[in-house]
């Protein structure tokens, strides 16, 4: 499958591209709205802030909205997941494709950094075989969905949303590209899921 990474200057784009390559996909980075609208699977990566990521997306924001309207699959990773939501406490505004804010974590240690076990709360083809798996997190903010879109939670002071899925939109707060064998499995699941749309 050909995967298009929406290129908005995020630091981890190269790692995400390589990981999808290992999972068997052909990967292209793109800043072209037409290409992002049409691709079989689009991935929005990102680290750090929703604010800078949203700014970086620019013209691709419209393309991502059009994809959602046309039922074409999109995966957000880390800040890419947060970008699917409405607004962020740090001031940035997301795509608003899913309802709910993005808030700063209120745990003893922030960022939530390291390997933590994924608790699947709703069956999802993307998370097949991953209930209880250790995956890598590195974030200071998390989405708080208003609707029932969470498919996995992770415990860090309180339960945080670790994965979401709503129709053709999916997102993970962890980093599959840095989550060893579990991450690789997630990426293969994602390619199979995207092929079904």
């Amino acid at each position, binding site marked *: 499958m050909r995967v298009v990474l929406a290129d908005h200057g995020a630091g981890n784009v190269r790692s995400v591209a390589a990981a999808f390559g290992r999972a068997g996909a052909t990967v292209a980075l793109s800043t072209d709205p037409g290409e992002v609208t049409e691709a079989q699977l689009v991935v929005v990566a990102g680290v750090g802030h929703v604010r800078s990521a949203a700014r970086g997306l620019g013209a691709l924001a419209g393309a991502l909205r059009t994809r959602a309207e046309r039922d074409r699959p999109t995966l957000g990773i880390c800040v890419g997941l947060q970008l699917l939501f409405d607004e962020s406490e740090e001031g940035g505004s997301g795509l608003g494709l899913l309802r709910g804010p993005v808030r700063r974590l209120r745990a003893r240690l922030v960022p939530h950094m390291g390997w*933590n076990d994924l608790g699947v709360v709703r069956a999802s083809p993307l998370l097949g075989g991953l209930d209880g798996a*250790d995956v890598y997190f590195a974030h200071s903010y998390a989405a708080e969905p208003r609707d029932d879109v969470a498919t996995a939670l992770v415990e860090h002071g309180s339960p945080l949303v670790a994965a979401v899925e709503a129709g053709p939109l999916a997102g993970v707060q962890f980093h599959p590209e840095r989550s060893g064998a579990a991450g690789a499995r997630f990426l293969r699941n994602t390619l199979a899921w995207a092929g079904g749309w």
Partner: protein
Amino acid sequence: MVKKRVIPCLDVAGGRVVKGVRFQQLRDVGDPVELAERYSELGADELVFLDVAATVEGRSPLSLVERAAERLEIPFTVGGGIGGRDDAQTLLRAGADKVAVNRAAVDTPELLTELADEFGSQAVVCAIDARGGEVVTHGGKRPRGLAAAAWACEAVRRGAGELLLTSIDADGTRDGYDLELTAAVAAAVGVPLIASGGAGEAAHLAQAFRAGAAAALVASIVHERPERLPELKQELREAGWSVRS
């Protein structure tokens, strides 16, 4: 609950690993990415490449960072000799998950804020070398008149999302981490702390975790015999610590 991390540290110079790492089955024992992959297979939770930037001198550290970013399935930090914003940005844009900034942050604490604003604080590690509880730089030679815990608090306030705390006193001794220092700094901040310097056995890592460290850096203890890494993690697990299997 987030697992305690065990992090091998590789010293790199001129694109090669310089401290004796004794992997027998590797073709090229000096290639940092190849070594890193082997540590990853053995269960390393993360990796630190040190002195990559310090030893550039005409050679680009980028090929190393780019190759590591493409090939590794675990996160990695690049540190040592990062002179300022340009170095850090270049390394992060090349795919390093985090940069560890040491002297440049002591000299210009605003650097931490600038990097956190652009890349997020999860990408910004403040490396602190301490001797007798005081911050030192220049390989431990220059005391900076700052208490380690006070500097740690300031670094976090300015944007560091993690601390890599090395006790110069304990480094290389294999007698255990500096627990007093680790506990003092861990209690003072609300970000994860990586204890560094002095690891000789699993009990030392456990002591550092008990003192409040979220992660423990290991060097010679695993370089000498890399298969020691999974053993260490198993011993920690048997002692009741939650570590990734």
